[in-house]
């Protein structure tokens, strides 16, 4: 009997809410945006930074390596791996090649290029991860010249074997050799880059100092990382001393780094999750303020209604009931809308975001129970804040004043001030996000305008991986490659073709570095070096500033090299005509002494991407005596071809593919694309970040505009009577409009100034993501001021026009 009153009151409040759905729409969309933005970012942050790594007892696994700049463990040479022997407290040690390399896999219909990796049986043992199906490598497969075996990744298994366990009975035709599949890696396998894994075998007589292997170990429970590090150091240091491996007067240091920090390092540094989390926090704040604002305005609008009810003796809970009912509806709509929005966004993110954002394939972002809970809590906030404001109203407004005047006194000043304050805070927060967005946009623009030092517009490139079966030595590779050049240059429209072990902008941060010995006896450490053919420079449109490019035909190129101007700057003497000796024999016994005279100095190139330093590079011509050098690199590198054409490079794809298939029918052609596409890919991460930040700031801007609009709209509605009086006293419509714009402008202006001050202090944190633009960029500031003013004008326009349309009679009449 009593409850029917409550029900009808609830229904009544819903009815009037739906009759004028503007508030419901604004409030639930605002809530939905907050819910969605926070869930998406929270889920992404969790998936990329905090996803558990499925390696059992991962705190007992370390990476062993030389201490590199930035305090991380680098790689170890074969001789070091062999000599590790039995370290105290270390149970098992495993090694893997430092990076993936491409192999050609012949499928039924076509050849494809697949990323492969070599790991030892022990490497898998250390990880202790059960295979999805099948097994890891066995003892025999782990021996040099043992039986062939391959593991495939979960993704490869799904894609090429439809997740069928019959894959275990099949073989892969890799570079012309049939290799049986013995197992499928688990979905959670934390090394995601390789799709095929081969056994890494160590010949115990391999005493090479070249090559750097990824070495991991499982250690005893009660031992500290420092103890392992010092044991490792004493073992490897005595090896260094024994072999006189002093380099530049110093010996290397060695450390044991926890595997977890190794695996997380990539996702942590390569994403700007912290910025996103910051953006989401700011957005959440804007959402909360906006929701408070909307519910405050709603309560102000219900002022008269509520005073009448109070005068009639309504108990407090009955006074709050309509508000709660109303906000509950907003909460339900907003929650559902927000969860759907988050779901759609995460689906989208799953398709768009690159895999290096995530620890493993299994840590892909999905809406969790916690997110749903969060949505509920945020929705409850909407109800709670309305309750709080409602309560505040009841306590602090005078029923008498409202009722005696019949609710015609307009907005009371206290909530008017609070409303303007909230608008100001929103504007300030939006300013901060807009500045981040503007700076990101400028950074992206600057990066896309960077001069790479080579011409991406007129060439296309591709790579192949000559297998040792068909092309046993360097000569065989060069005969094929020169044949390819001749064949391609016979295509009409092709102007010049070159090849080499890498091209700038290929995106492979390779290990093709070597130390060089200068004439004066000093050593150049870790200089990037490529083996290249004649025509390499011309086809890439690279400029030789002094000296000459390599000649057509290989003979006259012998024992000459081309270096970048960066190397010359690095050394600070004129280099043309001088000699470098490669390799530096005492460091690397596998290399021959090759004195090379510098025949040309090329303009620097941005080999690693638009925002990275131009590295010092040495280009060595393919020659008969570079065989050992090539052998070092050919397993990890492909052979890249550059085809300079007349006209649109993309239109030459078919002819280039035909030529490649003619000359090397057993090899698959990788990434046949205009070089401009390679450059665009370098900007992919930046573009993605930019898009995400733009989405955030766009949402922030629209939310604060909504906030401003609602404050202005309600204030104009509340001042209807006042405007009527003014109009009756002869105020022109334009004057009434200006009044509205002025009151909006003050809140906005203060918000803008506060926002810029806040932005100036937080911009320190984003500086490292900027390129070619300072955090206090005047253009960006001018633009966001303009954008904010524009959005403010738009937000005030409708209320201002409503004010201008006030007819004196209409609003003064007592209705």
């Amino acid at each position, binding site marked *: 009997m009593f409850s029917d009153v409550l029900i009808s009151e609830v229904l009544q409040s819903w009815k009037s809410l739906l009759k004028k759905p503007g508030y419901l729409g604004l409030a639930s969309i605002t809530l939905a945006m907050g819910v969605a933005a926070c869930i998406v970012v929270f889920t992404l942050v969790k998936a990329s930074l905090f996803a558990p790594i499925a390696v059992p007892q991962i705190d007992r696994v370390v990476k062993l390596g030389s201490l590199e700049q930035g305090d991380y463990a680098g790689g170890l040479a074969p001789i070091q791996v062999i000599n590790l022997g039995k370290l105290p407290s270390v149970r098992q040690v495993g090694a893997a090649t430092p990076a993936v390399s491409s192999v050609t896999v012949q499928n039924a219909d076509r050849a494809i290029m697949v990323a492969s990796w070599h790991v030892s049986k022990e490497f898998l043992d250390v990880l202790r991860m059960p295979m999805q199906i099948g097994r890891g490598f066995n003892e025999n497969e782990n021996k040099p010249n043992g039986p062939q075996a391959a593991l495939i990744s979960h993704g490869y298994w799904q894609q090429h074997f439809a997740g069928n366990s019959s894959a275990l009975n099949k073989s892969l035709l890799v570079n012309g050799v049939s290799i049986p599949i013995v197992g499928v890696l688990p979905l959670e396998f934390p090394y995601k880059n390789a799709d095929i894994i081969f056994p890494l075998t160590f010949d115990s007589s391999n005493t090479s100092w070249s090559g750097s292997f990824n070495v991991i170990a499982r250690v005893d429970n009660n031992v500290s990382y420092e103890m392992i590090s010092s044991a490792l150091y004493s073992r490897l240091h005595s090896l260094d001393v024994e072999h006189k491996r002093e380099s530049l007067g110093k010996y290397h240091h060695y450390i044991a780094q926890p595997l977890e920090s190794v695996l997380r390092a990539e996702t942590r540094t390569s994403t700007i999750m912290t910025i996103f989390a910051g953006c989401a926090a700011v957005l959440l704040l804007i959402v909360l303020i906006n929701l408070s604002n909307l519910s405050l305005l709603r309560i102000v609008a219900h002022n008269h*209604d509520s005073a009448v009810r109070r005068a009639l*003796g*309504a*108990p407090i809970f009955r006074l709050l009931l309509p508000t709660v009912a109303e906000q509950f509806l907003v909460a339900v709509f907003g929650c559902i809308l927000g969860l759907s929005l988050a779901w759609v966004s995460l689906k989208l993110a799953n398709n768009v975001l690159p895999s290096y954002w995530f620890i493993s394939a299994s840590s892909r972002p999905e809406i969790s129970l916690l997110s749903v809970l969060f949505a509920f809590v945020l929705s409850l906030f909407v109800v709670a804040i309305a309750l709080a404001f409602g309560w505040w109203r009841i306590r602090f407004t005078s*029923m008498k004043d409202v*009722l005696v005047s019949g609710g015609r006194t307009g907005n009371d000043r206290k909530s008017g001030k609070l409303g303007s304050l909230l608008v100001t805070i929103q504007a300030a927060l939006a300013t901060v996000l807009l500045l981040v967005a503007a700076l990101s946009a400028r950074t992206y623009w600057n990066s896309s305008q960077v001069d790479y030092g080579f011409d991406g517009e007129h060439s296309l490139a591709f790579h192949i991986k000559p297998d040792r079966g068909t092309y046993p030595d360097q000569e065989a590779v060069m005969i094929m490659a020169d044949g390819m050049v001749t064949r391609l240059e016979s295509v009409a429209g092709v102007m010049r073709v070159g090849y080499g072990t890498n091209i700038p902008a290929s995106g492979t941060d390779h290990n093709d570095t070597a130390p060089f010995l200068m004439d004066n006896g000093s050593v150049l450490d870790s200089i990037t070096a490529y083996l290249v053919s004649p025509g390499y420079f011309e086809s890439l449109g690279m400029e030789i500033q002094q000296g000459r490019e390599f000649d057509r035909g290989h003979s006259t190129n012998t024992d000459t090299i081309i270096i970048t101007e960066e190397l010359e700057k690095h050394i600070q003497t004129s280099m043309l005509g001088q000699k470098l000796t490669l390799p530096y024999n005492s460091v690397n016994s596998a290399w021959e002494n090759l004195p090379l005279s510098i025949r040309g100095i090329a303009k620097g190139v941005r080999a690693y991407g638009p925002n990275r330093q131009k590295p010092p590079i040495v280009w060595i011509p393919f020659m008969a005596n570079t065989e050992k050098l090539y052998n070092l690199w050919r397993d990890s590198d492909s052979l890249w071809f550059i085809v300079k054409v007349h006209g649109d490079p993309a239109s030459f794809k078919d002819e280039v593919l035909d030529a490649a298939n003619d000359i090397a029918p057993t090899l698959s052609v990788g990434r046949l694309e205009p070089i401009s596409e390679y450059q665009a890919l370098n900007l992919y991460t930046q573009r993605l970040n930019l898009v995400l930040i733009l989405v955030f700031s766009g949402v922030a801007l629209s939310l604060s505009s909504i906030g401003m609009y609602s404050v202005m709209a309600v204030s104009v509605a509340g001042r209807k009577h006042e405007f009527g009086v003014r109009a009756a006293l002869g105020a022109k419509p334009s004057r009434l409009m200006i009044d509205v714009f002025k009151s909006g402008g003050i809140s906005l202006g203060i918000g803008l100034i506060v926002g810029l001050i806040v932005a100036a202090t937080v911009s320190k944190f984003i500086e490292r993501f900027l390129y070619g633009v300072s955090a206090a960029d005047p253009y960006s500031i001018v633009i966001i001021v303009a954008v904010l003013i524009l959005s403010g004008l738009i937000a005030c326009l409708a209320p201002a026009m409503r004010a201008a349309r006030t007819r004196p009679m209409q609003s003064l009449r*007592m209705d």
Partner: protein
Amino acid sequence: MNISDNNKSQPVITLNGLTKVFQTEEIDTYALQNIALTIMPGEFVAITGPSGCGKSTLLSILGLLDTANSGQYTLNGHDVSGLSMSELAVIRNSEIGFIFQAFNLIADLSIEANVELPLTYRNNLSKSERRDMVRQALELVGMSHRLKHYPSQLSGGQQQRVAVARALAGQPRILLADEPTGNLDSENGKVVMDLLNKLHDNGSTLCMVTHDISFAQQADRVIHMKDGEVVKAANLN
């Protein structure tokens, strides 16, 4: 708490030394100063006085819409100064019917729902009881044919009659009216005045602020106020 012992010889309302000060940024306004007043059951009291003398303030304190700064207010023999917000609400709901110059109907609610509103705040009325009381009240004011209409669809006079119906629907002991005819023309004003007289004849205690001398003269007693003080109380009957 039983505030409604109906003792005919005991005053319904007793004010003693009542003072109300409005504190604003610049100045303090003494809206009421040291008011003493007694209203007996069934009495019809009119309050008059120049604008700003504190009539509305007095009436809203009588109606428990506002509280005094000092002094004593005894309603049906009970001191109301120590009561909580919800206790005050219960008394407003059951003991007092308020009629405003500005009608104060809720625009979103139908006429029927407006009149029913105070009844829904009581816990002991069934739906049918409430409906009967609403019908009766609206019949009394001659508005029972407009149940489903909304306030904006009524004339000022009609709205005020609905407001009267709302005030009396719960059969309160005291009716307080602040210039109930102030927004009405003389014709409509008379209709509303006749209504109030009828209620008084049926035994209601009535306290009305008015500027209209002819209406004031229909009261048992007229209280003149000036500058927040009662300057003259005249017994007419």
